[in-house]
């Protein structure tokens, strides 16, 4: 079980969501979600596949638009800001994709350099190289700098994906299924990395997962998405100390299976 970090500042909300609704076709995915993320906190969003967990972080990052509700990220109301302001906000949000989403045609170095070239035109090549070194060292993959993404394993790709988001020093990290498709040992390493990122870079994170080990090891607080709403919230023990059959089934499936 993860120790709750002392860095959490409960007086400072970095994300505030109220009554968020989103539907696709006739299907209501999110039905009035309320969420608060505090400075320095790792918040885990648990839920079955297809319950709208990824939709939630795509709305936070501006990839999808909410139907109704308030989404306030770092003091900016997403429904009211211009596309330019969205871009400025995105520099403060790191998004680690489920399949890493590394650019296949680029080497690892070019992948890491890409966000810098696009957004930090003031930097010289030497400074960029130093920043690349730092993030590669943080994810323990300095030796892979000249490899192509296709040459890496699933776990290594995830690490590089995280390194690519870290390079712009985001204040918020959004992890979409960080351990999906990984073996248990690699999953534990990724969980460790998520905690290291939180401590070293002082980020606030939302971790989307259905992996209870990941939730237990990384979450300072856990919320459970059921029927398009957050129904349970608290520490790992608090969330799963429940008579709700759906919660019990979720727990049993993860730990008995």
């Amino acid at each position, binding site marked *: 079980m993860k120790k709750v970090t002392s860095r959490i500042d409960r007086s400072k909300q970095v994300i505030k969501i109220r009554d968020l609704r989103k539907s*696709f*076709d*006739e299907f209501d995915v999110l039905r009035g979600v309320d969420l608060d993320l505090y400075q320095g906190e790792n918040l885990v969003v648990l839920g079955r596949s297809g319950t709208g967990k990824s939709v939630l972080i*795509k709305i936070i*990052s*501006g*990839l*999808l*638009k909410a139907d109704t509700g308030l989404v306030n990220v770092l003091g900016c109301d997403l429904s009211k800001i211009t*596309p330019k302001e*969205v*871009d*400025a906000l*995105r*520099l403060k*949000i790191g*998004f680690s*994709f*489920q*399949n890493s*989403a*590394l*650019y*296949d*045609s680029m080497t690892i170095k070019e992948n890491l350099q*890409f*966000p810098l070239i*696009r*957004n930090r035109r003031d930097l010289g090549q030497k400074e960029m190289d130093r920043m690349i070194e730092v993030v590669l060292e943080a994810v323990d993959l300095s030796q892979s700098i000249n490899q192509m993404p296709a040459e890496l394993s699933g776990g290594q790709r995830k690490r590089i994906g995280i390194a*690519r*988001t870290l390079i*712009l020093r985001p204040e918020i990290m959004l992890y979409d299924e960080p351990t999906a498709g990984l073996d248990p040992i690699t999953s534990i390493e990724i969980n460790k990395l998520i905690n290291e990122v939180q401590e070293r870079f002082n980020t606030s994170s939302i971790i989307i997962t259905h992996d209870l080990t990941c939730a237990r090891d990384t979450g300072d607080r856990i919320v459970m998405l059921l029927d398009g709403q957050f129904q349970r919230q608290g520490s790992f023990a608090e969330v799963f100390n429940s008579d709700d059959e759906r919660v019990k089934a979720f727990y049993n499936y993860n730990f008995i299976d």
Partner: protein
Amino acid sequence: MKRMDSNISKVNEEKPGRHVISKRIDRIFARLFDIYAFIVRFFKEAFMPPYEGREIVKQCYEVGVKSLPLVSLTGFIIGIVFTNQSRVSLAEFGGTSWLPALISVAIVRALAPLVTAIIAAGKVGSQIGAELGSMKVTEQIDAMEVSATNPFRFLVVTRVLATTFMIPTLMMYMIFIALMGGYVSVHQHELTSFTTYFIQVFNAVTFLDVFSSLIKSFLFGFTIGVVGCYKGYHSSKGTQGVGKAANTSVVMAMFLVFIEELLSLQIITALR
């Protein structure tokens, strides 16, 4: 944000009980509007700074330089084959001396623009469709967007500009190569000298011929780029979607190129 709107419009398009005429016709109009919006967005983004100079050069290299061997080989063979086939007909009434003029007119006015466009649709169009399609399904386009890079400008605008400017360049190159192929055949059979051959070629071709072919090629290049990018950028999830994007990019681009050829022929004939 615009991409979000287009996703939402796609979702609305599928909603049952919301059809103005019928599901299929509504879908066709929605698709046409989507393509129109895509093209309008291209022009908007293409003229707004910051410009993606380095990426445009890279894409020009991909489209132009990498197509050179195929264009060279095809052009040369077309020149030889067309000359040999035309010789038979002209020889029947002793008109083989007209071969250089016939070849040049046919190549400059129709063969070079059309064949270059078809080669580009097959090689470049499918490549763009597959590349963007695979980037879409593996969330690389989303990754670009969340790192505050405009993926439309970086991926679509650069590729469409590259095809628009490189296909006319390849077309001019193909004219030269096909004429050389024609020369090889004419020289072999009629013993015509290089100078005489090219004097006859330049006498037969007018400024309007070259100019209209260039304009057509710009249009073909633009069409191939837009179709490839549109299909790739909007490809559905999964590897099947990537294959479909590559395939439909080629089929649709070729179909549109032939229609444009037909329409431009009517306009040029009227001008002539």
